[in-house]
């Protein structure tokens, strides 16, 4: 593991104060080992290569900065979709307002239950994928999560799940500082859709580890809550087997700070991974900073990966994209695609992008593109010449810009729901 030295004193004090919760044998071991690696690498600082564009301070400091609750009468995302709903209030699972944790081909258990047992299948995933994702780039916040999390869901999928599982986060406290860790194991031939929505907490540190066996499929769509002052660091660690499929889409609307890291390791041949996101931010009344940091490793033959990220920014909002495709020796016939685009609705906002390719195989097709621009004047004129007023024409072009990211959502019903959220944001943030 690569460990960077010379950390500042303040995070050190924070580190010293971290105590892992007590659990069963496997959980205690996993937490202890995560705490050890966290101490080895230290908390992130602005000097770290992958934290140059996003200040980690708010995510690493001992106490979360309070965040006011958003008052809204908007219906929650996914509420019209037939789903199994599991509710977390301020980062704590509440079984009383959740659906029964029973569904054909799926086993669901709170992390707390699994962690109490001395032997559990979760042992092979919990903190294991996270640990694997610590190289070549350190992700200390994820190690912190593994070391301290007691909340989360442990999900095992053995066949085609009849309906999506929805992790629904509700926020009632202005100060809640939550750590949530989910693991999903998709067995051979399993197929499941995981939805996540809501702001979770004033500050949330979330990890999702996904292990997909041969022929398994995992679909993931999340919205991160549109509370203006909330802060979030979310990590996904995924491991893909032969002919498996991983598809994840994130919608970020508002939020003072969002850092989404995704580490995907493609280990089996003929596998497919898609990671996509749409972010819309307006810094007029509240700061907006959204960061997608992706690392995809191709370590098998004939695999495809797609990264599609679109960010619409205005009034001093900041969007960050750091995306890497690593093609290991022997990973022939790799098809890697990466696009990140920023649409600036004014001159005050910024989009910082760092696309990277590192290729050690000679028979691969990898493409990457990154653009930043304003609304296209020709397209705007075309729409206006048909009688559509400027504001409405601009809205249509913003949706047009975001469309390519949304198209990565397979399920039409879910895609429409997400599209509706974007329309609503545009409506609220018209000039």
């Amino acid at each position: 593991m690569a460990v960077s030295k010379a950390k500042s004193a303040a995070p050190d004090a924070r580190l010293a104060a971290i105590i892992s919760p007590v659990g069963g044998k496997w959980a205690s071991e996993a937490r202890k080992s995560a705490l050890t690696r966290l101490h080895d690498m230290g908390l992130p600082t602005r000097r770290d290569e992958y934290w140059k564009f996003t200040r980690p301070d708010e995510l690493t400091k001992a106490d979360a900065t309070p965040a006011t609750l958003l008052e809204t009468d908007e219906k929650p995302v996914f509420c019209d979709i037939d789903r199994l709903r599991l509710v977390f209030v301020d980062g704590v699972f509440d079984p009383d307002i959740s659906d029964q944790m029973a569904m054909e081909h799926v086993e669901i258990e709170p992390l707390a239950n699994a962690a109490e047992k001395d032997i559990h299948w979760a042992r092979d995933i919990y903190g294991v994928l996270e640990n694997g994702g610590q190289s070549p780039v350190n992700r200390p916040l994820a190690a912190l999560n593994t070391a301290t999390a007691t909340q989360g869901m442990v999900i095992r999928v053995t066949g085609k799940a009849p309906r999506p599982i929805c992790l629904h986060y509700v926020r009632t406290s202005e100060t809640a500082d939550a750590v949530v860790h989910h693991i999903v194991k998709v067995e051979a031939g399993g197929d499941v859709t995981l939805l996540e929505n809501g702001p979770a907490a004033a500050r949330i540190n979330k990890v999702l580890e996904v292990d997909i066996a041969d022929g398994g499929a995992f679909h993931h769509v999340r919205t991160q809550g549109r509370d203006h002052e909330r802060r979030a660091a979310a990590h996904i660690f995924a491991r893909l087997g032969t002919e498996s499929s991983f598809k994840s889409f994130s919608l970020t609307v508002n939020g003072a700070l969002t850092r989404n890291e995704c580490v995907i390791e493609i280990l089996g041949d003929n596998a497919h991974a898609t990671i996509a996101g749409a972010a819309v931010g307006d810094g007029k009344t509240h700061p907006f900073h959204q960061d997608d940091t992706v690392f995809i490793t191709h370590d098998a033959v004939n695999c495809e990966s797609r990264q599609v990220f679109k960010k619409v920014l205005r009034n001093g909002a900041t969007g960050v994209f750091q995306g890497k495709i690593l093609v290991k020796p022997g990973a022939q016939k790799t098809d890697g695609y990466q696009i990140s685009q920023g649409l600036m609705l004014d001159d005050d906002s910024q989009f910082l992008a760092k696309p990277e390719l590192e290729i050690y195989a000679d028979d691969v097709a990898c493409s990457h593109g990154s653009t930043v621009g304003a609304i296209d004047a020709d397209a705007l004129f075309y729409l206006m010449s048909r009688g559509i007023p400027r504001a409405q024409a601009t809205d249509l072009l913003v949706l047009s810009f975001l469309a390519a990211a949304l198209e990565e959502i397979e399920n039409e019903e879910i895609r429409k729901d997400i599209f509706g959220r974007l329309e609503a944001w545009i409506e609220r943030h018209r000039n």
Partner: protein
Amino acid sequence: MLKIENLQVKLEEEDKQILKGLSLTVPSGEVHAIMGPNGSGKSTMSYVLSGKGGYEVTGGSATLDGVDLLAMEPEERAAAGLFLAFQYPVEIPGVGNMTFLRTAVNSQRKSRGEDEMSAAEFLKVIRAKAKSLKIDAEMLKRPVNVGFSGGEKKRNEILQMAMLEPKMCVLDETDSGLDVDAMKLVAEGVNALRDGKRSFLVITHYQRLLDHIKPDVVHIMADGRIIKSGGPELALEVENNGYADLLAEVA
């Protein structure tokens, strides 16, 4: 009636005069054609009339039924009854053709104080009009002009024209990039809209289009002005002899 008087236009970014005293009147119900060598200002005229940015009007006027076009925003000109069929229709990914057209129709209706068209009514109307232009349901669903062939894009322009029912249609080289059959189809679409009141200004390089869309008057434009106007025979003359003789006449 479209009335352009002594219109003078320069590029906003550089000191280059494009239109140098253009005067032209298209009475209600008539079809006028404009021909002229490359760079004579034909497309600039169509853009200035419809309100595209990047141009500065330094003199003259343009009115539609007495209303000053140049003082209005592009969408207001459209609502006032002006339509420009683009030489290069713009692709808009992620916006369905149908959504786009319904938004346009209803925006115009709204600004004229009329009731919006219901989804059902709109669907009925657009299906009928699309059928006559051989535009299938698939093309209506697809994003605006994305993946359309040259011919499909031009047919889509005519469909928009048919749906928006403008008073004054400006067609900027609608025949460019079309094969003979596609051109006939587009011409039929245009002719179907001739109702004795609606006017057309057809910009073209080729007499061929005018075999299908018969003009009342043909204008020859050169160096930012109309240098000669006449009947359909003027187009034939250009087809046979080029512009050299006409340019020499006025020189």
